């Protein structure tokens, strides 16, 4: 019950963060979208044993956190929500891939390394996506998608789903509250009413969604979700893409941690 209300507020938290006014928030949504996509591609492109090469990529989220003045905790909490899924995907790797390698003087199976790689990649990609939303906002993000000529229908679907989630969660929360008020000393919901409760919620959310849609139509909604202010990209925005693009491509082409390492060890042995 509390959890649902909490997640309701959590969903809206990202919207609130997106209303900030920092140098990152002001970057054109399209620039941020493209940068994020490049970042995602670079992160996933690494081989499953290359953990060390993933490490420099942490710079991107750290810098965005810092410059966009975002609170770290609420965003990392959301990342953690996804991690169980990631763990679920990678958990069998250590079982299947038991070939042993040496890492920092320790014997470790390759399965563990791939598992760790999946874990890190999951964390980085989800963080990047959340940061994009938290610095841009869904509306402006949709605008950027439209600029990329993504079909109107898909963008609309995305936006309305995002909007409706919070509306529908409210309905669910009210229903559950009504249930718990009349079912004292019960943990969770009795199995016998699962069906009718779920059906009830479905019908209520249908009704609610219908009313919201009608209200939209009455205010002239005709399929195009217009969010206003669509400014043009300027030189700064281009620089943002090029800057991050260069950084990421460099990280992809050269093994920076290795180079740094050999540089230091080279100095020492000399």
């Amino acid at each position, binding site marked *: 019950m509390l959890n649902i209300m909490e997640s309701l507020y959590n969903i809206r938290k990202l919207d609130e963060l*997106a209303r900030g006014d920092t140098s990152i928030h002001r970057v054109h949504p399209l620039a941020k979208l493209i940068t994020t996509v490049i970042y995602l591609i670079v992160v996933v492109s690494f081989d499953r044993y290359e953990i060390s090469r993933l490490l420099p990529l942490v710079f991107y989220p750290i810098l965005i956190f810092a410059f966009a003045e975002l609170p770290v905790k609420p965003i990392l909490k959301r990342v953690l929500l996804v991690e169980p899924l990631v763990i679920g995907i990678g958990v069998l790797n250590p079982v299947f891939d038991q070939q042993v390698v040496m890492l920092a003087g320790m014997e470790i199976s390759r399965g563990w390394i791939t598992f760790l790689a999946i874990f890190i990649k999951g964390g980085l990609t989800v963080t990047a996506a959340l940061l994009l939303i938290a610095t841009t906002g869904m509306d402006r993000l949709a605008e950027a998608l439209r600029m990329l000529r993504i079909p109107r229908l898909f963008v609309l679907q995305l936006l309305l789903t995002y909007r409706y989630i919070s509306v529908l969660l409210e309905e669910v929360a009210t229903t559950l509250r009504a249930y718990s008020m009349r079912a004292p000393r019960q943990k969770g919901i009795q199995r016998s009413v699962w069906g009718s409760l779920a059906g009830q919620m479905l019908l209520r959310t249908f009704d609610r969604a219908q009313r919201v849609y009608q209200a939209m139509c009455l205010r002239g909604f005709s399929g195009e979700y217009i969010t206003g202010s669509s400014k043009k990209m300027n030189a700064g925005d281009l620089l943002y893409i090029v800057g991050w693009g260069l950084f990421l491509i460099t990280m992809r082409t050269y093994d920076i941690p290795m180079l740094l390492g050999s540089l230091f060890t080279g100095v020492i042995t000399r």
Partner: protein
Amino acid sequence: MSHHKLEVRDLHFAYPDGQEAIRTMSFVIHHGESVGIIGANGAGKSTLLMLLMGVLFPDRGEVLVGDVHVTKKTLPLIRQRLGIVFQNPDDQLFMTTVYDDVAFGPRNYKLDEKEVESRVNQALEMVGITHLKDRAPFKLSGGEKRAAAIASVLSMQPDVLIMDEPSAALDPKSRRRIIRLLNGFGHTKIVTSHDLDMTYETCDRIIVIKDGEIAADGPKDEILTDAELLDRCGLEMPLSLQNCPVCRSQK
């Protein structure tokens, strides 16, 4: 100004399950009139509003806004002229900020962003919530939400303002504010409500609906003082017109 006229001719509507919500109804509302539509629960008020707005279409009869018939084709035009404020503001407010919500309508009519901004500011000023501009609608109080919902309709600059239960679930002070707001508008107004005291204060003409038909239509002083008529239609005289409950003195 005949183009602000709202006319209902011989309207009939039944829901798909066969329930006859509107039997026959005809009336004309002229420019600048403020009309209260009252009736018991299930009398057909909400259905009537839906028919006026073109959310539902009648089986028989017609609705004319100005000289334009309400049909699927003319809907965009009709909806620009009629602004409806829903009973539950939560159904109407769903954007991330009050500003975006109020701008939703004008943006849909593809006005340029400067015009949108001036309309939004004007609407917010009219209802006195300019300070809430950047707040998230779901964090507002009931009265503030209602005001925001009204602003979101005013920004479309409708000729006719339709309100479904504008004073429902409001505290007395917020209710008073809404009444003052309503009285301040020069628009043609149509208000449905069970709050007959509010109806008495904001409307000049009253239409009483009973079982999908018009039971009475006339000036407020005539209708709202007719205890027998109101009783027959499942209503009651406004409290402000009844005898004092403490001293029983006649009004």
